[in-house]
């Protein structure tokens, strides 16, 4: 126990002594992971808002339940077969009421008040992928002729297509930036550790003289890197969560687009980011220690070199 306290104390002393460079390392981790998390949040917002329109779905045909409004049993499968035979249709899939409930739960995950509904009110649907998006008007017209079984026809607008394209462009940009900044964070942590070793070289050489094992000497530096990584990551998670929550609060009531991301999403991704921050910190420390690890025999430059 006293050993752990001693190692932690040594790590804290080192953090305090190199405060400026430590802050720089934490800020770099914060920015890099903040950008990465922002990319994930944007991705999530787009995913939730365009969930139904993924995998190239161009038209969704919501169906009246069989047995209601004079819809005969088997009408859904008959319509599906007919739609699949149309030349303009590349692919058509049947989406049951159970599938609809599952999708609804995904869209409104974490929002208990919205999830408290009767699942049977959600309609079954047919999701259609066209051979050419420009044919959607004609197909929509033909579907609307099937009154009775067809409740409503929804067409993916160009804006959804553009939104999806924009989302992928933003994602690629942000993820590239976060990778570059992530590498910078690891390098900066390595540099911090190297400086810390330099500023504590007397202590390190004395520790070696009195028989401290190499791991015992390394642990405070690894702890230092770990703390830098985790603190940077925690700040990033907090800042992005705060930003996203503020935007969500400011945009409540927007009918077309939902900006809020579930707490569960933040918890899971936040945990992942903290782990990533910790790993980046330890990897950075290992890199910083690498030269020292190779030179583990001598007691360092402070032992007299004359003879």
């Amino acid at each position, binding site marked *: 126990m006293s050993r752990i306290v001693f190692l932690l104390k040594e790590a804290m002393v080192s953090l305090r002594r190199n405060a400026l460079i430590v802050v720089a390392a934490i800020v770099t981790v914060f920015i890099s992971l903040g950008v990465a998390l922002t990319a994930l949040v944007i991705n999530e917002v787009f995913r939730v808002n365009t969930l139904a329109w993924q995998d190239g779905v161009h038209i969704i045909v919501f169906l009246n339940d069989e047995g209601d409004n004079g819809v005969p049993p088997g009408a859904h499968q008959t319509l599906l077969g007919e739609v699949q035979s149309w030349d303009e249709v590349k692919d058509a899939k049947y989406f049951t009421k159970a599938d609809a409930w599952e999708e609804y739960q995904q869209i409104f995950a974490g929002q208990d008040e919205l999830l408290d509904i009767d699942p049977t009110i959600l309609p079954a649907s047919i999701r259609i992928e066209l051979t050419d998006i420009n044919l959607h008007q004609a197909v929509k017209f033909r579907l609307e002729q099937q009154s009775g079984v067809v409740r409503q026809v929804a067409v993916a607008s160009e804006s959804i297509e553009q939104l999806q394209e924009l989302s992928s462009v933003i994602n690629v940009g942000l993820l590239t930036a976060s990778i570059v900044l992530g590498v910078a964070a690891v390098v900066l942590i390595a540099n911090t550790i190297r400086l810390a070793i330099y500023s504590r070289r007397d202590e390190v050489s004395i520790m070696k003289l009195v*028989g401290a094992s190499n791991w015992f000497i390394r642990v405070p530096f690894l702890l230092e890197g770990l703390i830098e990584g985790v603190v940077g990551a925690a700040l990033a998670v907090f800042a992005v969560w705060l930003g996203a929550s503020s935007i969500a609060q400011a945009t409540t009531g927007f009918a077309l687009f939902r900006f809020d991301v579930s707490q569960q999403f933040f918890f899971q991704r936040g945990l992942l980011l903290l782990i990533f921050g910790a790993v980046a910190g330890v990897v950075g420390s290992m890199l910083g220690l690498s030269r020292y690890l190779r030179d583990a025999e001598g007691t360092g430059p402070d032992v007299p070199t004359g*003879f």
Partner: protein
Amino acid sequence: MIRLDQVTKVYEGGTVAANDVSLDIQKGEFVFLVGASGSGKSTLIRLMLRDEPVTRGKIWVAGKDITTLPKWKIPYLRRSVGTVFQDYKLLPNKTVAENVSFALEVLGRPQSVVGPQVEQVLDLVDLADKAERYPRQLSGGEQQRVSVARAFVNRPPIMLCDEPTGNLDPKTSVGIMRLLDRINRTGTTIVMATHDHAIVDAMKRRVVALEDGKVVRDDETGGYEAVES
């Protein structure tokens, strides 16, 4: 306790710092390594501490061949060897007590052991009343006593001292030598490199004289200079 068998150390560039040195040091002995600057005294100390690898030959410390010791085992060797250097090697931002306890803390000794042991050794070096001072608030002699306390606090069977009185005036040097003598009387083997004639002549202990890395004299109770017969 320490045995060197035909030890040779050649530094990069071809400088021969130890040349076919063979020595046998018994448990509880006090041995002076003497010679001019550059004769190889410090190199022998560093070789015994495995701070440098030998070029040829074998060294046994406390019954173990340290020339073939894997790197990860070197710390275990150093735990059984206390070291004192000319420049004290104290940590300026730690108090006297902290400097001494540092040696026990890196070994993972529990606090219940560290406190009393540090107190005891500070009593031995007569610095109990200065336990909370920083090295800069101490004289050279006092700093060296702290260094001796740190080397001895773990009760090592061997102490290696490289010019421990090199920075001290003659009177203070006598104080340090008295301390080392007391430690030696507890059964600790001491090997001390020095070129202080007065100390070597006064102590009347074993003297190993070196010249250009070679042992030129090994007297059981000698003086600094060889006695012409």
